[in-house]
């Protein structure tokens, strides 16, 4: 039995309940900015968290090692680090490793050892490299004591811990990183003990998920994923979300709008009214992927290289606001933090439940199905809407 589960879930609950605030920002041009703004934005939603977890994901931060998997690990002691390092050496070529830069902050709680490794799989054909990495991450997270991989993608990284997110941002000196996508999370867990690995974002390969909500379908979702080789060690809703996204997009190769239709499926009554070919597809998706319908309130911001996606549950029980200014797409639990860091926002809107908002680097566009019903327009910015 992996000893970290005693820390992550001390009361052996079915799952660890938490609620949250979240924020995401992306430059559709790939323009990079420092972590300063997102720290201010997430700090503006302080009441949505309770200081028991904060975290960030940043894309495009390791251009010098962009071809290597950047493994971020936390260790609760040196023996965990030694064991894991020997495992990593057996399975990967480590091209660089270093302590993740951080500075003392009195407001973060009991920090573990944090280390990063830039690695490439040993003797693995390129097309299987991702699967190989997932397998090894799962092994460390389920089998090696006192060790936890919290980030494993290329040219991106997750930074998270116990404390209000602004302190976690300071702790990891995020001002020194430049990314074209930033996502952030402020956590409000209802269990008292908090653990660094339990903060958001959750990540596998370059997929990250920040999540607000409580998934009532957790047991069903978990069964579905466990049957397909994912082990839910963290007992959180968000972990389920991250694995679901990885399964559907990476393994089953489904486009993101289909993923949205699986996780926030249209109602049967809506499906009945669709045109024939769309109807057939939607019925099939619900039949095959009924185990991945995410039931209960949720909003997620999912990111991977080149894309940032916002999605809320199908009856919209958790908030999500989107905003646009020039090349910037913002997604947030609240409107205010967007305006804090971008006072001249062009407009903001509230997406429909179950409708994904996709920011895509390749085409430099924001994709959404329904015309946004604009809820906020800055007077002096209105010209640029057209």
């Amino acid at each position, binding site marked *: 039995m992996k000893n970290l589960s005693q820390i992550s879930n001390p009361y052996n609950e079915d799952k660890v309940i938490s609620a949250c605030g979240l924020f995401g920002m992306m430059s559709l041009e790939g323009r990079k900015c420092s972590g300063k703004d997102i720290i201010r934005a997430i700090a503006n939603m302080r009441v949505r968290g309770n200081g028991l977890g904060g975290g960030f994901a940043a894309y495009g931060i390791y251009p010098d090692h962009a071809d290597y998997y950047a493994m971020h690990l936390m260790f609760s002691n040196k023996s965990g680090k030694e064991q894991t390092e020997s495992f990593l050496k057996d399975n990967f070529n480590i091209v660089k490793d270093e302590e993740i830069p951080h500075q003392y902050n009195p407001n973060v709680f009991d920090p573990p050892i944090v280390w990063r490794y830039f690695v490439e799989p040993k003797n693995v054909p390129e097309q299987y490299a991702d699967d190989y990495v997932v397998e090894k991450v799962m092994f460390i997270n389920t089998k090696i004591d006192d060790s936890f991989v919290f980030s494993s993608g290329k040219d991106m990284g997750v930074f998270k811990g116990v404390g209000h997110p602004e302190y976690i941002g300071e702790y990891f000196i995020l001002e020194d990183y430049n990314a074209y996508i930033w996502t952030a999370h402020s956590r409000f867990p209802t269990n008292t003990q908090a653990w660094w690995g339990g903060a958001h974002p959750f990540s596998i390969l370059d997929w990250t998920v920040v999540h607000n909500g*409580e998934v009532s*379908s957790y*047991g*069903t979702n978990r*069964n579905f994923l466990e049957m397909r080789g994912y082990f839910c060690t963290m007992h959180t809703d968000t972990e389920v979300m991250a694995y679901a996204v990885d399964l559907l997009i990476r393994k089953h190769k489904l486009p993101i709008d289909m993923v949205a239709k699986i996780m926030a499926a249209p*109602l049967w009554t809506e499906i009945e009214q669709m045109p024939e070919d769309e109807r057939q*597809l939607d019925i099939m998706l619900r*039949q095959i992927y*009924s185990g991945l319908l995410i039931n209960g309130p949720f909003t997620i911001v999912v990111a991977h290289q080149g894309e940032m996606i916002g999605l809320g549950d199908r009856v919209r029980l958790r908030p999500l606001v989107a905003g646009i200014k020039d090349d910037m797409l913002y997604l947030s639990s609240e409107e205010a933090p967007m305006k804090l860091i971008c006072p001249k926002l062009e407009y903001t809107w509230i997406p429909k439940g179950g409708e994904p908002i996709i920011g895509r680097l390749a085409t430099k566009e924001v994709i959404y199905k329904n015309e946004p019903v604009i809820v906020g327009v800055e007077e002096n910015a209105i010209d640029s809407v057209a």
Partner: protein
Amino acid sequence: MLSTLLPEFKIERDDSRCIRCQVCVRQCGFDTHKYDEDDDAVYAAEEKCVGCQRCAVMCPTNALTIKPHDYGYRPNANWSKDHFRELSRQAESGGVVLTGSGNDKPYRIYWDHIVLNASQVTNPSIDPLREPMELKTYLGRKPDKIEYDPETKQIKTEMPPQVMIEVPVIFSALSYGAISYNAWKSLLQAAKQAGTLCNTGEGGWPMELREYSNRVIAQCASGRFGVDVEYLNSASIVEIKIGQGAKPGIGGHLPGEKVSSDVSLTRMIPEGTDALSPAPQHDIYSIEDLSMLIYALKEATNYEKPISVKIAAVHNAAAIASGMVRAGADIIALDGIRGGTGAAPKIIRDNVGIPIELALASVDKRLRDEGIRNQASLLVAGGFRNSGDVIKAIALGADAVYIGTAALVAMGCTICQKCYTGICNWGICTQDPYLSKRLNPEIATRRLVNMVKGWSLEIKEMLGGMGINAIESLRGNRHHLRGVGLEQWELDVLGIKGAGM
């Protein structure tokens, strides 16, 4: 031979209320009541009474009270009244003691030791009267994934046949022959109206009722009564019946007296002959034989219908079910120890098989552990009494629930357990036209539909309470269950925690 048996029921007639209308005399198919003209009085032969309460219900002045006889024998924990009666009957007859309906022994009913969850604070409960609440369920094999080409927008996955039910409650196998034509027709009509399915049982399917085809599961049992290609192709699902919860390991026997001309036509056997269903299907002595029959039926139905395989819940049900899925079954039906029957040896009904709750939990888990749970839908049967039992079964992993006895009760059955006699004062389990015409199919249909409707409203309320708005999000979601008063091994088998944990 002098019978040493005392009557099972005591009949109290309030003479001040009795108006000598003789309704009770006419209503009792067992000839319990007799009117004596000379005395102008009604007398009862109590030893004939089965306690079905028909006379008490029909008596216009409520003059009758029927209650279990309070024997004066010395109390004995080992030799209960039932043991005593059965042994005496056997000493008198030298035969196998028969019975009807489901097991009435006090085996633990796990549903009564499992409680459900509800949302508080961290997650809003949902009001089904204001918000959408989905119970629609598709039965059939599901592929592992969808294969989709985003370039051409083509779906490459071929979907195996699926059958939709509006509510996860299906009428179980009650054969025409065992139950009356009117009762059978009512189940069909109700299945259609309620958007669910009705299982034919093993007694065939009268030609004039084939219009209900899209709501029927056609059974193919060991006697193969009424089975031909048209029969198979008229149904939406074909079910191979291997076993029945009330009598695992043995066959069936419809006595010749019940084989009327209509029953004979439907079952495709001569009138008045006994309809014997062998214990095994004689072309299935192994798992590979089962696979051959499954594919023979798929061939016969052009791969357009899911094939279900029904077994009695027995000790190694999990391993058997896994083999059945691998043999090609699209649906697994499990029938637990409390499952009903029209006729079974009492010793078998009371002693063979395992409770459906435990079988369901272990089968669902085994199929998940082996990564094949999506390849078959799971139907469970055996003593379901209300919507609470149904929703707990779904949370344990079932796709839908078969109800037999509950449907009979909705039509008027009082579970007197005399189905095997051919006499049923409620007109349900009989072929006697004088008795069967008592059941009005329109009224019985309405009662059945009302029950299904009531249950679905209750299921929606409970789902909403858990913060769930689609039934599939509860399937196998055992986190919403807790056990009360169960041993650790039972909690382990059920895969649930004790309450408060």
